[in-house]
Every structure is written in structure tokens, then in C-alpha cells.
């Protein structure tokens, strides 16, 4: 069957957001679309479905004005027979409507196998749990992010059944980051369901993701249908999007050759413990503790200089919360922390954190670069207001930027508005801002978020260098297979939450 092939060009406010020649989509296969975030993967997929607003975007598909494309039989067919699972499940459900109504309105009203599909997505649930979930109005915490994602996927699967029943030919199903930043348990369930439904109905599936570890999982679990699975990577070359096939072995080979990061003999202060946090911190009605093995006995978290530590826990346990407590952003009861020679507890006044610790001894990199950076600043302004040591002159910053961005920054990069950079560039800028500081301890929350393969390698190289320079790094990441290989076993910690009776 001839694959779908589109030329996509999307402009907004006279700025070209996306320009892709020959966006290929083989019919009847699963295509994994990898690549750094913010270069137009979701936007292009939405454009195909006719979801963009004509007043805002000036889009052209195959040279056709967008209004015409929206009316074209192809776009109408995509909408009628297919489905689109969007990226942020929390905003994609109506807060004033019960979940069961949302899952059975519109064209989903005629779908037969609702109960069966839901049961498969919630395999471990008790009877009646699914029903009580459906009667809920979606709020921030209930259902959880993972549950919301599964509800949206359930809608997609219902549509698949309907499409098959009506004899649709090549319906298109798009899953945009269906696993988000969820932990591997949920990721495995959702992926499994997608591929199982694929096997049953053989629609055209486009799965947009920046999680390269899916490659390992897919080749392992569904090796038999590998010829129906396609890995492509979208990258920006001179402002144009280029779609290339991505060989699984590129990633797999790289992964298998990873060695744990260990400080070499260059480390000046050796392996002194720089940060030590005792277990048993209570916050939000739960008590958090560290251990060396999952569910093992509690132990303090000890970060040594020139080392990289990895904190693991199922999603929802409170990894982000505990690191925020360690950074003094959230008050946790029973905090007993030793930083160098000073003791920190919940009674430590905020002024002390602000004057002595933040940016000077400890710093943290947050996972969403879009939120962590001021999108209206220029690139050079990102480094203003930082407590940088005098040795970091403007030239030094420029040199670091150059190195970090691969030895070539486009002219005028420093004067560009941060909001106009791609997602990967923003993430690297976010990291660089903290890495330039002279802090002894660096906490990184999902540092590889939104990066493509090449950038990922660069960032990891940079982190390795900082470790060798004597910093202590603490990482949170759902890219378990990468960091399990990179972090020495003695530096892996597990976080657990217990609830008082």
C-alpha cells in the first residue's frame, strides 16, 4: 500500500513553526515518531486532523490552504474514523462532566465493548473500582495522571472497535506522548494495550514520543511484528524538519556500551559525603524514607562528591516532593539534613536558604524547561541575576554555551527570545543555567526530558564531566534503563512512602 505522504508547512505570526517535506506515514503499521520536543511533531499531526484554528495558524498541507484541507475528504475521514490521544491528559478532560459521560458521548456512544476495554486497562483493580472511577468528575488529583491517560486511550480503543465494525479502511490513530512521564509500570500497560489493539485491527498508528527506552521494550516484547513497526526521528536542519529512519540498534548499541560513571583520579576532594538526609520525613500526610533496595529497611541518603546518585520510586510516591524538601522549597517535618558542615532542618529560616544555599551550595534543575525559563527573556538575559562567581565573565558563558550546543550557535542566538527556541534547546539552556553555578550539589529532575538522541548523549557527557570536576549529582528520571547503566549500584536509592494509621 502506498504510504501517506504530506508536505506540511505551518506558520504563526509570520514565523515558520514547522516545515516538513515528505512526512511519510506507512499505512497499516505502527510508526514511532521520535525527536526532541517542540519541533512540531504534535503540531503536524494535529494539522493533518484539521484541528488547528485557521485564524491563528497559516498552515498548508501539500500546498493546499488550510481551510480547504479541513474540508477535504481525507481530513474528514481521519476525524470520522480515527482518534487522537492528546499530550496532556489533565487539560483534555472536561472538569464539569462525569468520566462515564465523556467516554460515551459523540461518536463513542455506539461503542459496544466499553467494560471489556476498561477492564484490560485496569487489570489489577478490584471489582467496582472502575465503576466508582467513572462516576467521578475529573479533578487535579483524582483520577491520577496515569488514570487520565488510560481513559483517553480507552476512548481511542473504543473508536478502533467502531472503525473496524464499520469497515473503515486505514483509519489513523495518533497517540501523542501516551506515557508522558509516567513510570514504567503504566508505560508498559499502555504500550501493551496499544500494540494488542494494533494486532487485532491493524489500523495506521502514529505514536509520538521522546522516550527512547520504548525501543528496547518493543523489540523485546513484540519482536514478532517488527516488520510492521517503524522508528523514525524528526530533526531540525537549518530550520527545516527532516524525517529519517531511526535504527533501533543505534540506541540499543549505545545503551549496552554504557558504563557506570565513576570519578577518576582527577577528583580533588575524593569521596567525602557532602549531603546526608535522614529518612522519616513527613509531609502531606505521609512519611518518606530512603532505602537501598525496594521496600528495604530505611537508611539515610548520602551524596558524595564526584558521584552521581539515582533516586527511584513508583510515580506518585513523592520524588519531586522530597527533592523540593531537600531544596527548602517545601517544609517537611522531621527534616534532618547535613550539608557540608551545616545542619538544616524544618526550622531553618527561608532567609538562610536564600542567602547561603540556593544557587551557592545547592541547586535544582526542574523538568519542564517551558516553565523553568522565562520565555520572554533573551538568551543572554537568562544568566542575569545569578549569583555567579566573578570568574564567570560573559566570554566564559559564551564559551560554555558554544560547547554545550555542539560547537555552532546560529548568529544572534544570544539575542533570541527563549520562547522561540526548540524544546531541546530550551532544556539544554535550563541545564546550563544551573550547571554554571558553583553549587556543590546538583539535583536534576528528568534532565533528559524532551531531548533527541544526539542531545541526550551530549547532556550525559556534560553531566559526566561535572561529576569528574567534583560535584555531587542527584537524579530523578523515568529513563530507568539508561540510568541503571550509568549509575553505580552503590549510588542507587529507593524512595518509599508510608501512611500513618
Amino acid at each position, binding site marked *: 500500500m502506498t504510504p501517506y505522504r504530506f508536505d506540511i508547512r505551518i506558520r504563526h505570526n509570520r514565523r515558520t513553526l514547522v516545515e516538513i517535506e515528505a512526512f511519510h506515514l506507512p499505512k497499516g503499521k505502527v510508526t514511532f515518531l521520535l525527536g526532541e520536543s517542540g519541533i512540531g511533531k504534535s503540531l503536524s499531526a*494535529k494539522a493533518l*486532523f484539521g*484541528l488547528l484554528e*485557521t*485564524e491563528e495558524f497559516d498552515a498548508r498541507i501539500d500546498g493546499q490552504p488550510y481551510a480547504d484541507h479541513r474540508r477535504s475528504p481525507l481530513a474528514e475521514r481521519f*476525524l*470520522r474514523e480515527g*482518534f*487522537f490521544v*492528546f499530550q*496532556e491528559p489533565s*487539560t*483534555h*478532560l*472536561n*472538569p*464539569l*462532566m462525569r468520566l462515564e459521560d*465523556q467516554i460515551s*458521548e*459523540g*461518536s*463513542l456512544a455506539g461503542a459496544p465493548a466499553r467494560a471489556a476495554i476498561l477492564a484490560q486497562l485496569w487489570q489489577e483493580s478490584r471489582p467496582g473500582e472502575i465503576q466508582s472511577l467513572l462516576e*467521578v*468528575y475529573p*479533578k*487535579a*488529583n*483524582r483520577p491520577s495522571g496515569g488514570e487520565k491517560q488510560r481513559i*483517553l486511550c480507552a*476512548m481511542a480503543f473504543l473508536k478502533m472497535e467502531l472503525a473496524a465494525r464499520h469497515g473503515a479502511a486505514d483509519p489513523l490513530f495518533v497517540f501523542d506522548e501516551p506515557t508522558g512521564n509516567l513510570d514504567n509500570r503504566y508505560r508498559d500497560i499502555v504500550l501493551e494495550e496499544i500494540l494488542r489493539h494494533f494486532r487485532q485491527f491493524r489500523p495506521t498508528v502514529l505514536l509520538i514520543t521522546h522516550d527512547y527506552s520504548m525501543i528496547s521494550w518493543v523489540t523485546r516484547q513484540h519482536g514478532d511484528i517488527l516488520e510492521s513497526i517503524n522508528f523514525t526521528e524528526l530533526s531540525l536542519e537549518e530550520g527545516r524538519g527532516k524525517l529519517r529512519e531511526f535504527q533501533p540498534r543505534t540506541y540499543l548499541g549505545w545503551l549496552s556500551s554504557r558504563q557506570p560513571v565513576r570519578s577518576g583520579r582527577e577528583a580533588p576532594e575524593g569521596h567525602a559525603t557532602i549531603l546526608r538526609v535522614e529518612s522519616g520525613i513527613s509531609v502531606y500526610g505521609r512519611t518518606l524514607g530512603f532505602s537501598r533496595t525496594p521496600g528495604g529497611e530505611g537508611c539515610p541518603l548520602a551524596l558524595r562528591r564526584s558521584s552521581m546518585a539515582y533516586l527511584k520510586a513508583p510515580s506518585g510516591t513523592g520524588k519531586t516532593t522530597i527533592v523540593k524538601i531537600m531544596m527548602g522549597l517545601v517544609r517537611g517535618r522531621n527534616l534532618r539534613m547535613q550539608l557540608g558542615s551545616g545542619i538544616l532542618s524544618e526550622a531553618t529560616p527561608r532567609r538562610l536558604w536564600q542567602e547561603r544555599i540556593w544557587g551557592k551550595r545547592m541547586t535544582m534543575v526542574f523538568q519542564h524547561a517551558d516553565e523553568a525559563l522565562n520565555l520572554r527573556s533573551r538568551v543572554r538575559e537568562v544568566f542575569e541575576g545569578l549569583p555567579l562567581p566573578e570568574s564567570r565573565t560573559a566570554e566564559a558563558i559564551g564559551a560554555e554555551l558554544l560547547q554545550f550546543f555542539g560547537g555552532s550557535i546560529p548568529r544572534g542566538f544570544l539575542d533570541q527570545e527563549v520562547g522561540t527556541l526548540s524544546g531541546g534547546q530550551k532544556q539544554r539552556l535550563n541545564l546550563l543555567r544551573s550547571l554554571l553555578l558553583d553549587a556543590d550539589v546538583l539535583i536534576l529532575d528528568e534532565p533528559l526530558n524532551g531531548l533527541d538522541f544526539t542531545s541526550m548523549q551530549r547532556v550525559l557527557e556534560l553531566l559526566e564531566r561535572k561529576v569528574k570536576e567534583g560535584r555531587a549529582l542527584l537524579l530523578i528520571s523515568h529513563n530507568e534503563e539508561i540510568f541503571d547503566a550509568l549509575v553505580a549500584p552503590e549510588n542507587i536509592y529507593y524512595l518509599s512512602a508510608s501512611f500513618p494509621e
Partner: protein
Amino acid sequence: MKGTLHTHLLSILVVAGAFALILAATGGGTDPEAEARRRLVAPFLELEFFDAGDPLHRALLKETLRLYYPSSEEKIDSLLQAIDAYRQEQFVSETEKTGAEALGWTSRKVARLIPMYLQFTVIYGIVLLLTLYGAQTLGTYRFILDRRGTPPLLRAYWRRVAAALPTRNLLRIAAAVFGNLPLLGLALLKGFAYAILFAPAYVIAYSLKTRFDTDSYLFMIVLGVVSNGMVITYANKFYLYLIHESRKGYVETAIVKNLARTFQWGVPGGIPRRAVFRIRKHFGGHVLQHIYENARFQYIPALKEQATFLVTGLIIIEMALNIQGHFCYEMLQNILRTDYTVVAGMLLAIFVLVKATDILVDLWYEREARRYGHPELDQ
């Protein structure tokens, strides 16, 4: 909910206290000089045989006082002056107003003001509800027009004429200019409507004073809703809420679930015109239903702001139009009479009315939130 109720009640108490303090500090506004004068003069005026209006009596009084208090020449003169001044005051106030009422709260005054206050409350309530309906309906209507992408009237007219110009065919051009005149007419009408909607109430009322009975309740209610920029500001606010909601993610999900998304009138998959004008609007099977429901819920707290502005508008209307027998007109009269104790009481009464509305709106919001299992109530 109890907490907000207590806060509301506490604020009423505080405001009442503040008023009392201000009045005490400024001496109640009653002219202390006049008060002192009255006290001085009163015993003389109460003498039965003394007619203060008769010049002979006044001269006799003067002589008598001179006889008994020979060394108080100045005091006697000033006393007579005080009597004169007092009489003049009484005369002036009698000829000017509805009768020389004593300053301050009297039971007669209370009996007169209470029905006016109730009348004010009823008018206020009616206008509030009408404006709520108007804001939601006009806001939704404007949102639909916006989605359809109809160009503004003047530009549409210009476009059609400009399209005919290059043909250099006089007949075509004339046809374009005159045939599309209804568009110009509509634009003019729209401009006229804007003029009314934004005009302060007194401008409109005075323009129509000789044609219509501007003292009627109906006129007041219509004026309250339409003028002072009232309905247009809140229609705009509601429209902005709709726009804000329409950008949210669940609208995309609704589209992908194949809910109707055209904003044309009356076609299948579009919006029936009548649905926009209902009181309880419902757009079944259309993405607008999701958007409208959310906007409507978000808008409820804005009703408090609407109430505050409405009171401002009504005060302006009643005072500026000098409508006798209305609460705010009485208030204006009392201000001009410098009877500030009464004015303070009336202002407090209005504040209580606004606070009562706040409480009711909070209760309503709470009820709606509970219906939707609002996050604050859960957990």
C-alpha cells in the same frame, strides 16, 4: 462556607462601626453653630406671648433685656441676631424643601424610607437578573459570530465596493455601492446601539425626557440594564470567558469524538438560533456545550462584581434623574441638607444589600460546585 459567611457578617459590622466613628469624628455633620444657636434661641421662642415675627415684640424684648441686664449690650444684640438668623433659616428651608424636617433619624423618616428601600431592592434584583441573562446571551451570540469569522460590517461593505472598482464598469460600481447599502445601514444601527450602550444614564434619559415618562419603573429598569456600559461590559466579560475556555484541551477531545463543531445557524451540525436565547442554554451534541458549561460556572463569582457596578449605576440613575420618591434621590437630598447621619445609615443599608448579594452568590456557587464535585469539597 461558614467561614465566608462569618467574614461577610464581620465586614458589615466593621463598616457600620467605621461609619459611626467617622460621624463622631466629624460631628455628625449637623452644623454645630446652628445647633448652638437653636439652643440659645429656643427658650425665647417658646414664650407664648412673644411673636418673633412682629417687629414691635422684638423691640420690646430688646428693651426688657436691656433693663434687666444693663451691662450685656453685646450679648443682647447677638441674641437678637441669632433669633433673626434662626427665623431666616426656617423660612428658607420651608420654602425650599418638603418641609423643615428635623435633622437626624426620626421615626417618621424611617417609616418613609423603608418602603423606598424595598422598592430599590426590588428594582436592583430585577436589573441584576436581566443583566445576567443579557450578558450570557449577548456574550454567547458574539462568540458564535466570532467563530464564524464574519468580517465587521464596514469592512465587508468596503470589500464589495473595492471588488467592483477595478472593473471600471459604472453600472457594476453603482450596483455595488447602492446594492450593499443595507450593510451601511446595519453599521449605522450598530453604532447607534453602541452609543446607547456606553452612554451614561443621564445622557439617555435627558434625551428622551420629553418623549417618554422617565420616571416610570419600566424605563428605569431598561435604563439600568442598557446604559452605563452595564450589559456590554459584562457581555464582553462572558465572551472572554468563552474564548478562554474554547482554547482548553477538552474542546479538542470533543472534536475528535466527532461532536458538531460548525458555528453556522440552523444547519444540521450547527447551532439553532433559538438555543442562544433560552434562559437555560443547552447545545446538545456540540462542542459549544462543553465551552458554555464551563464558562457559565466560572462566571458565577463575577456576579458579585456585576452587583457592585449595578448599584453604582442605579445610584447614578436615581440621583441624576431626580426621581422623587426613590431611595437615592432621598439620599441626595439628605446630602445637600448636610444631614449626614441619615446619609450614613442609607449608605450602610446599600452596603448591606450588596453584602447580601455576595452571600447569595457564594451560596449559589457552592451549590453548583458541589454538583460538579468541586476539588475543594472533595478530600
